[in-house]
């Protein structure tokens, strides 16, 4: 690969990362204030993160990558914005999805399973 191609690839990845970072910020901004304060009831449960990893691999990895590294379809979730978000914010996004941007609502998963996924995402 020529140096020019490498630079172009690097710039494209940087642009994609920047765009996804904005996507995450925009999604977090949409969360209603009341939903932000909802605590994660499974935060202290040792097995929650492990179960969340399994659920992530089953339902989320197709778009977000097997290690949450992101793909051309969806942002990386190994992102400080995700790690530092309030659990209630992530729960609201997972429950409602971002229908207009292609992320489905995951309300079909029972609430405890959504909390298990969030516990896993915030364990990175």
């Amino acid at each position: 690969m020529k140096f020019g191609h490498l630079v172009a690839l690097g710039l494209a990845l940087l642009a994609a990362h920047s765009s996804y970072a904005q996507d995450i910020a925009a999604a977090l901004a949409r969360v209603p204030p009341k939903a932000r304060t909802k605590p994660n009831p499974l935060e202290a449960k040792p097995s929650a993160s492990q179960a969340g990893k399994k659920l992530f691999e089953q339902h989320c990895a197709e778009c977000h990558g097997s290690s949450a590294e992101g793909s051309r379809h969806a942002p990386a979730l190994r992102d400080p914005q995700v790690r530092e978000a309030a659990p209630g914010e992530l729960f609201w996004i997972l429950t409602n999805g971002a229908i207009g941007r292609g992320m489905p609502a995951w309300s079909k998963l029972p609430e405890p399973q959504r909390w298990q996924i969030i516990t896993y995402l915030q364990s990175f």
Partner: protein
Amino acid sequence: MAYRFTSGAQSYRTVLVLLTASLPFPALAQESPYIVTYDHHLEEPGNLEIEYFSTFGTQRLGNDFHAFWSEFEYGATAWWTTEFYLDGQTTFKDSTIFTGFRWENRIRPLRTEHFINPVFYVEYENVNEADKIVKEVEGHDVESNSGETNAALRGERDHELELKLILSKDVKGWNVAFNPLAVKNLASGDPWEFGYALGLSRPLALEASPSLCWLCRENFILGAELYGGLGDAHSFGLRETSHYLAPAVAWNLPSGWTVRVAPGFGLNENSHRILLRWGVSKEFSGIPERFRKLFGGRL
């Protein structure tokens, strides 16, 4: 009459099994146990679910039957799921016939979850009168309608428009769904016909276990469905209508397969005494991406 159960139905199932086996990208499904009722959860975008269902039905004053259909359910977007059906049936001591096709669309108008979540459902059906899958019950559908021979029934073809309003809610692990429906046969001057379906379901466990397992409690979802006809625009109500109650269970396997069983019991003299239903389905993810790769990225 020749008894031709094996040829049509078996080759139909063989084609489906080969088709599902040839798609190597399974996704884990989290399917409800409903066979008639719809909840508000749509297919994930880019996912294709291939389903096969059977209904064994008893028939007074006629021969029992085994109706079967396959569904190809595709998540076009996060707010639109489209689905294509192929229907057939075997009437015992009679024959096996293909009865028609259906094209269904479900559209979610609201972008976030609400107290009750509506989904609009529009379906076009091109089926003949011998269709016995009983995917919904409408108008004055009664058991005696399907008592004649296939030769007598298959001659009349219906072009139907079916509209449903899917209303559904998840609360504390339970799903409650109600589907009022209206059907118009476009090929005749028949009035609009009405019906309903009501469903209730819950997984055996709400938390997932940390390891992959086939028999974990969260893989099993139990429920029940109640469905029936409500007459037509000329005679709305319960007179000369049929109704069914069906306990139902779905088993969502880690391999991406789902098995459903729902024995339905007729609730009045106009209903088939038993509609024993079962089905298998498998979900495949990332279909557009696979097609793009197949055509060298040119799509």
